[in-house]
Structure formats: structure tokens, C-alpha cells
């Protein structure tokens, strides 16, 4: 956590008498790299605003001559995703939202409780438990995806039997539910890590005092820790939101067809081999797919970076 705060607040640094030329070179390089990082996004936006003939015939760095929002409306409501579906990406956008919201909330809540137990109610072996959960952050999903497919297939069969028996599947076999399961389980390592590190620094005396006053486990959590957890909740929610929204592997494996999340739909749209490639529509769809996470980054960049750093610099 401290590492990220250091990024935000630069301490005074002695300026070792740099010459004007050095300063110009430094600013020049920084500006050059800023342009490099921005250009793909700018090209994306400009391409999405051009009619198709201007994209295929013109220079990608040229400003749109006859700017149009048609590619955007096409991407949202009409573009062909895959073979048969021609309703644009709007439905898939909603799929992603339906998956992201419960997955983020559940994994964050569980992470908070785990972090609370692992710091304030320690038991012999707590370090091993934490270490084992931490390793969950780093496994390649390829090494769990076959068993996951088998288990989710079983859940689907249960769902079918439930439909036969009661007319309702109770969520068994529902692709969105499947993806929520995946993202909660494989997000637990990160959410636990975030809250554990945060609560580690939380004064244990306050917890002890509340205990002496007769407060129980959940009361202490709700009244003492949660009210002081806002920063880490924001960090965790943003981190989980970004990761789950951007996931592709689980989405493409466990939610096929019109149930798939946004990233999978975008990939299908871009790689359809039928007809003319509508680059402008593809770019509009890509920007729509990126919009939620970019928006979060713009309004809460500080917390975003903090989450990244906490996820990278362990311990």
C-alpha cells in the first residue's frame, strides 16, 4: 500500500543542476512516449468516426472528413456477431454487466471477511492458509479449465433435470452463473490479499477494545472495520471489476453464443470472415468494450494504480 502512496506523492528531490538542454531532452522524451502510448487510442477513435471508404481509402492518421456516428450505432445495435446474430453488441454488454456485478460483490465481501479473520482472529497455520490462497492468484487458468468444464457440465445436467422436474433451473447451468462462479473462486486470492494487507495495518487495540465491550465477531467487523475500509473496498472493487470485465478465457470457454460476455463478442465481431471487414464498426465496438474500465480508470485512477501495485508487490 505504501508503495502506491509513494507514486502519488513525490517527495522533494534535489535537482542536480541540470542544464537547459538536459531538461529539453527529458521533456522531449516524455512527450514522445506519451504520443506513442496515445496514438493507438486516437487512431481507434478516429477510425470509428469515419465512413468505411474513408478508412480503407484514406490515411489512418488523417482526421475524419465527414465524421459520422453510424459505425457506433451499427456496432451497438446491428452488427453481425458470429454467423446468425445481427443485433449488435448491446446484448453482450448487458451479459458482461450481469456477470460482473455479482462476481465483484461476492468476491469482495468474501475477501474482506477472509482478510479480517487472517489478521484479527489468527489461528495456528494462518500463514500457510494465506500462502495457499495467494498462490491461487498466479495459476494459469489452463491448468484448471478442463476440470472446470467437467464440473460446469455436471451443473448443467443438474439444471436440465431441475427444469424437467420443476420447470426452473435455479441457475444451474446458466452461463452467467457459471462465469460468476469462476470469477469469484479465482478472484478470492486477490481480494483476500488486498484486505489482509490493509487490515494488517489496522490497529488491533480497537478490535480488542470492542471485544472487551462485548462485541462479537460480526459486530466488530461491521461496526469497527468496515466503516474504516472504504479505500481498500474501492481498490478491490476496481481491481476485480477490471479483471472480470476484461476476462476472455473463461468467457469464451463457458459462455458460448448469445450468452457470451463483451470481450468474446468483440473478438467474434472482429474475426468474422464473412463479408467486408468493417474496420470502423470494429473500432466503435472495441471502444464500447473498453469504455467501462476506461471510465473507472479516469475517475478513480489513484485507486486503480494502488490495486495494481498491491497485486504485484506482495506481502
Amino acid at each position, binding site marked *: 500500500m505504501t508503495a502506491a502512496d*509513494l507514486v502519488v506523492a513525490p517527495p522533494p528531490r534535489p535537482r542536480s543542476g541540470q542544464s537547459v538542454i538536459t531538461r529539453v531532452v527529458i521533456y522531449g522524451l516524455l512527450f514522445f512516449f506519451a504520443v506513442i502510448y496515445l496514438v493507438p487510442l486516437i487512431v481507434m477513435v478516429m477510425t470509428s468516426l469515419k465512413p468505411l471508404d474513408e478508412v480503407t481509402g484514406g490515411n489512418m492518421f488523417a482526421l475524419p472528413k465527414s465524421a459520422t456516428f453510424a459505425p457506433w450505432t451499427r456496432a451497438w445495435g446491428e452488427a453481425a456477431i458470429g454467423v446468425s446474430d445481427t443485433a449488435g453488441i448491446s446484448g453482450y454488454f448487458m451479459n458482461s454487466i450481469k456477470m460482473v456485478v455479482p462476481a465483484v460483490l461476492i468476491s469482495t465481501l468474501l475477501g474482506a471477511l477472509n482478510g479480517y479473520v487472517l489478521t484479527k482472529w489468527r489461528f495456528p497455520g494462518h500463514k500457510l492458509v494465506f500462502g495457499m490462497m495467494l498462490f491461487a492468484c498466479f495459476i494459469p487458468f489452463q491448468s484448471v479449465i478442463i476440470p472446470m468444464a467437467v464440473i460446469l457440465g455436471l451443473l448443467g445436467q443438474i439444471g436440465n433435470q431441475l427444469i424437467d422436474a420443476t420447470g426452473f433451473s435455479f441457475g444451474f447451468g446458466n452461463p452467467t452463473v457459471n462465469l460468476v462462479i469462476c470469477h469469484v473462486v479465482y478472484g478470492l486470492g486477490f481480494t483476500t490479499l488486498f484486505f489482509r494487507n490493509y487490515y494488517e495495518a489496522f490497529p488491533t487495540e480497537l478490535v480488542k477494545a470492542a471485544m472487551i465491550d462485548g462485541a462479537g465477531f460480526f459486530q466488530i467487523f461491521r461496526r469497527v472495520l468496515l466503516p474504516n475500509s472504504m479505500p481498500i473496498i474501492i481498490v478491490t472493487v476496481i481491481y476485480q471489476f477490471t479483471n472480470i470485465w476484461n476476462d476472455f478465457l473463461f468467457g469464451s470457454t463457458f459462455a458460448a453464443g448469445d450468452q457470451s460476455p463483451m470481450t468474446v463478442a468483440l473478438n467474434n465481431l472482429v474475426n468474422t470472415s464473412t463479408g467486408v471487414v468493417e474496420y470502423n464498426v470494429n473500432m466503435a465496438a*472495441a471502444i464500447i468494450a473498453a469504455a467501462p474500465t476506461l471510465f473507472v480508470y479516469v475517475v478513480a485512477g489513484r485507486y486503480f*494504480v494502488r490495486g495494481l501495485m498491491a497485486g504485484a508487490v506482495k506481502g
Partner: protein
Amino acid sequence: MSVTIAPVAVTDGRPSPALRARIQGLVPKLVLAPSFLLVLIFVYGFNLWTVFLSFTNSRAFASTKLIGLANYEKLWNWTFETNPPSSWYTAIVNIGIFGGLYIVFCLALGLTLAILLDQKIRGEGILRPIYLYPLALSFIVTGTAWKLFLDPGIGLEKAVHDWGWTSFKFDWVVNPRMMIYCVAIAGIWQTSGFVMAMFLAGLRGVDGEILKAAQIDGASTYATYRRIVIPIMRPVFLSAIIVLAHMAIKSYDLVLSVTGKNPGGAAELPSTFMYSYTFTRNQMGVGSTSAVIMLMTIAAIMIPYLYSELREKGQ
């Protein structure tokens, strides 16, 4: 069958204080248990299951018929099958190229940007988010953007031709032999900002007094960084390399989106190899073997690192 009821100290219909305390003592463990159980099953159990599958002759469906090390032998032989190159050989070569370039360039760019930003720059608050925003994008969006940007027909090559340099040629993204380099370019663009943030945090953590002392001793800026700052930041280098290495091994979506579904397996990586052998080529045994190799590689990188990090914190 006899049922024994444990003697419970019942006095006035409410549990005795001693029992209440014991229940209270159990609550934290009960709260942590579901999460830990999920991790045990979905991470460790599933990994073992995949290891088991790698010893079976599973094809389209999981089988229990053990065939010893046959799958491993197959992969081992493919590792040296260069003419014509086997998919596994291509995957190994590509992960070497991709991982090497990805790690080296992310470190170099990240360190350069961090050092430049640390020179008391005006407008740091604007520049820093520009270098970091690609991280908020999904790999599919990044890949889509770079695929368009590098497309010789409408992207960079075309633009340079329009500007008058007509002999300029840059068709890597459609050239099977060079595709993997485009994946590396897109990956570096996406992640180098993150490495910059890690290094910047490290630089800001360097004690200003040491730098002042070096300055008084007449050390040049270059010498100060070369001999003092960078050696102090060795742990940051280690963290960055480990994070990058494990991200490189896990890279999957980026390959598919930059190359357009990896045509002809030219940009094969172990991650895509695993997926295609398991889910499209119906050789689940071979697929899980490659997944186990990925897992072992990541474990070999992460476990010593996590172990030392957790130990250090405990002291």
C-alpha cells in the same frame, strides 16, 4: 446404529459462557472455511485433476485410462521436431521470443520512463496516467487496436506510403513468421506503464539523504543512478521480472486478437497450444500435459518468491 448425544452443559436454556466462548472461537474459522475450501477444490484439487488427466489417454472427453508418461514423451519429442516444426516446438520458440522481448522491453521502458518522470517534471500528473491507461483495456481491445494499426493495407504502412516513403514495408502482422513480434509490441505497449509505476514507487522510496550525499561527493546524475539508485531497487527489479514472466506465460487473449485467431498456429504459445489440443483437436491428454508444464513453470517462478516475501514479512 447408535446415536450418541454429546453432553451439553445446559443450565437455564442458554449456552453456558464457556460454550459461548468456544462457539465464538469457532466463528472466524467457519467464516474462512468456505473460501479456503473453494480454493482447495478449485485450485489445488483441479490442478491435481489436470495432472491426473495428463497421464491418461483422454481425447474429446476425460478418460481414466492411464497410459503412463506417454503424453510427456510425445511433448518431449515434439520439442525437438523442427522440420517441419511441430506446434509445440513453435509454441516453445514463440514463448521464448515473446517472453524475452516482453520482459526486457517492459523493464527498459518502465525504468526509463520512471527515471525521466522522477526529474521534478511539471505535468507529471498528466503524463503518468497516459503511460498507464492501456492497463485498463482488455487484451482483446488492445489486440484489436494494434491489428488495425499494423495492418499493411490500411494502417501504418499505408500511412507512411501516403506521406511519400513508398518503399516502406511493415507487414509483420500478416506475415506468419513475424506475427509473434507484433504480439510482443502490443503486450509491451499495454504493460510497460505498469512497470513504470512499480519503478517510480521504488525510486520515490529511495532515501533523499543518500542522493544528497552522492551529489556533495560530486557524483554525476548518471553515476548516481547507475551505482546507487538502481542497486537499491534490486527488489523492484525482481518483483517486476516475476510479474512479467508469469503474465507472459499466461498470455492468451492477446495472441488471438492481434493475429486474428492465430492463423495456421503461426503465433502458437503454450497457452493457445493447450487450448486447441484440448478443445478443438480432441487430444485432452496432450492438452493437460501442456497445462501441467505451464503450471510447473509458473510454480517454479512464484513459489520461492512468495515464500521469501511471506517469510520476510513475518520477521
